[in-house]
């Protein structure tokens, strides 16, 4: 073992130590995500579980006039593959976000590293910030589509940057000639995949690729005109497969941009009532992202800063850097401001991009703004913060160095606290049905052969835990209330924790069973802690109905 370590050390010695540190951080990120994998825990998950059922049967879900999930093959297919490989387990469900999330610090650090002078500490600091970024860490333990979206976009930016750098070099050798063509093709492919994960890749990469081009032009100038062919290659690699996919959508939906149209229609049915008469107040809507970025968020007693205090720090450093603009060294100054405005541009897009302009302006995500949409701000904010906190020469003074240590320590401490609380919220809010799923296949198996009655959210959780794509497995009824007067004995589930954004009171209460009329026996109670997402313990009851004549005259209230 020692000899092996010595061998690794000898191999690493002549190499770039920063790169080794970045690889080590990536390995820690991957390991931590693997250990703490949660699985399905969000209200959106059933929307993805249904199309996965088709994929399991060897089909692709039908593409409807309205919808979203089925138009995201680069999100569904990798999840389907990992489920096939690892089975319907927490790791099988979230292997894709775990891997892609684990690489986010490395990819962002590489973006910085390519554009900063050698020896800069900014890439490592940036990787550390992103490794401990609360919302990114917890999101990569669940089905959060933004995680692979950011991964593919960052990969595209890095590959594009490598291609551009190769293009600008002079003279070009034959080997380098091939390498920049290869990078261009790979960049286009990554763009294409990102677009098939989520159409938000278009604005996201629009801003990030612009950022990268600005950095490259500032550093290397425009490439010779005859070398632009490589960039055209990248564009072709994106456009050709995307064109094929769009034509496929046209064949299936009747519209070339069937994916975009279907998503717009899905949101259109949720238009607020006051929209048409022009009385819609947008003030609260605009505040949602701001609150998520800057203020504690979550259920009562478990509120945490989703982005730690990195947003506050970035705002403060942004003001300071703006004041001291002229004193900053040139490469770092460009980097800092480009990343700051990249984050600002993304925020403005999320906040104000119009969903409709007629008859009134209506911003996108009008039906409530999920916290995960702002995940895309994390890489540029971390990059900006890292660049400013590692400005050469500034922190050589003892006082400023100590201040930087204190600031980073405070930020990381708050981030660690937030990660634990947030992880607990999602893990515990899905724990009840995870236990129930295990019990239903073991010691409660005989009861679970009976028809099951369960509230809708509980049913979704239960079926997800049991393996939704496998339609032959146990299926509880989705009904909230059934006419059970003439039914055989059934099992009824009451209480239990509810996922985020779901009211714990949505679960059936035991009192409701008295309305059924019949014999009720408590079978089992699943233990749990008192939490905002769990107002009652999950209980399983056996109900034997009292037979009545369905044609009885109604009783008078």
């Amino acid at each position, binding site marked *: 073992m020692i000899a092996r370590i010595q061998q690794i050390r000898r191999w690493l010695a002549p190499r770039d130590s920063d790169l080794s540190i970045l690889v080590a951080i990536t390995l820690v990120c991957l390991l931590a995500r693997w250990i703490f994998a949660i699985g399905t825990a969000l209200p959106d998950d059933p929307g993805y579980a*249904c199309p996965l059922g088709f994929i399991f049967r060897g089909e692709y*879900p039908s593409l409807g006039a309205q919808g979203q999930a089925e138009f995201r093959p680069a999100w569904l297919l990798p999840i389907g593959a990992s489920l096939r490989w690892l089975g319907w387990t927490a790791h099988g469900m979230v292997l894709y976000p775990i891997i892609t999330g684990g690489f986010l610090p490395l990819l962002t650090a590489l973006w910085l590293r390519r554009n900063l002078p050698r020896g800069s500490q900014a890439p490592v600091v940036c990787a550390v910030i992103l490794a401990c970024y609360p919302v990114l860490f917890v999101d990569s333990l669940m089905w959060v589509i933004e995680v692979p979206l950011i991964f593919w976009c960052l990969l595209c930016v890095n590959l594009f940057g490598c291609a551009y750098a190769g293009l600008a070099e002079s003279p070009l050798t034959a080997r380098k000639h091939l390498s920049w063509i290869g990078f261009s093709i790979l960049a286009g492919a990554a763009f294409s995949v990102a677009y098939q994960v989520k159409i938000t890749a278009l604005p996201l990469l629009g801003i990030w690729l612009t950022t990268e081009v600005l950095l490259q032009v500032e550093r290397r100038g425009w490439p010779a005109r005859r070398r632009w062919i490589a960039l055209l290659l990248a564009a072709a690699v994106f456009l050709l497969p995307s064109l094929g996919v769009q034509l496929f959508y046209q064949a299936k939906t009747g519209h070339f941009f069937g994916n975009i149209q279907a998503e717009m229609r899905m949101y*259109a049915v949720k238009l607020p009532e006051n929209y048409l008469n022009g009385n819609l107040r947008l003030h609260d809507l605009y505040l949602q992202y701001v609150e998520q970025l800057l203020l504690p968020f979550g259920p009562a007693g478990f509120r945490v800063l989703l982005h730690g205090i990195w947003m506050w720090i970035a705002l403060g450093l942004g003001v300071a850097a703006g004041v001291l603009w002229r004193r900053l060294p040139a490469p770092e100054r460009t980097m800092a401001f480009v990343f700051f405005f990249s984050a600002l541009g993304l925020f403005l897009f999320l906040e104000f991009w119009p969903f409709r302009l007629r008859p009134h302006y209506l911003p996108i995500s009008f039906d409530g703004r999920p916290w995960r949409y702002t995940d895309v701000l994390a890489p540029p904010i971390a990059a900006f913060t890292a660049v400013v906190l590692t400005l050469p020469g500034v922190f050589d003074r003892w006082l400023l160095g100590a201040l930087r240590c204190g600031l980073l320590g405070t930020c*990381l401490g708050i981030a660690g606290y937030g990660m*634990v609380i947030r992880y607990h919220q999602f893990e515990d809010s899905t724990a009840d049905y995870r236990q129930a799923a295990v019990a239903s296949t073991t010691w409660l198996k005989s009861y679970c052969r009976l028809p099951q009655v369960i509230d809708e959210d509980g049913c979704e959780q239960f079926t997800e835990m049991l393996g939704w794509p496998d339609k032959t497995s146990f299926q509880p009824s989705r*009904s909230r209330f059934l006419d059970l007067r003439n039914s055989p004995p059934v099992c009824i589930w009451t209480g239990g924790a509810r996922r985020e954004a779901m009211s714990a009171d949505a679960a059936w209460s035991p009192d409701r069973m008295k309305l059924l009329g019949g014999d009720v026996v*408590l079978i089992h109670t699943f233990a749990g*802690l008192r939490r905002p997402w769990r107002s009652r313990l999950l209980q399983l009851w056996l109900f034997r109905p009292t037979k009545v004549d369905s044609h009885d005259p*109604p009783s008078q209230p």
Partner: protein
Amino acid sequence: MIPHLSLEPRYRWLLWTCCAAFLIGVAMGVRAIRTESAPLPIPNAIPRLVQDDIKLDHPLSGDPPPANLRGNLRVWLYSGRELAEPPLAVAVQPPVFDVSTPWLKALVDEKISHIPRARSIKMRGWISFSSPRTMLHLRSENGYRVRFRNALGAECSLVHWEDDVTEDFACGAFVEPGRYEIEIDYFCAGGNGFFEIWGTPEIQFDPAPDPRDAPR
């Protein structure tokens, strides 16, 4: 990796600061969770059984309809472009719902297949009733969203999102007496759609027209 990392003095400050601060934060988080960890009491009491407390009427049982059933349900096509204009009243024949049956019923089997896939159907109407503990049932196929809302703002929302369900789907909810706005979105155009609402037999639907029923 780690032995190599230890040789790099530039990052010692970062390593120690980050590790120590992050671990302190994690420890404080774990402590906060444990402090809040009171177990929920286990309610062992079995609910009181009330025999025949409520009677349900199955819509397919063929019971004769009560005479006091009234309601109103209008249906119109709905698409993004038309939203900017007053909703188009669409004549759905046979009648949108049949007041001679004990349930509000919107049969849209044929109509829905004639609607371009680009559109969905939106129905708005109202139900008024005075019987307590009324249970409204919805029965449908394909995706829909229904929302009841009374004058006091109490809301009951039932959503069925899947569009690949072929079996009948029924769900119900208890609602308090009063007048309820009903809003139904069928968003899975295509396929054989039908929609029914029914309630307990003593349900009293309000027959009086109301200006609020006019399409907005």
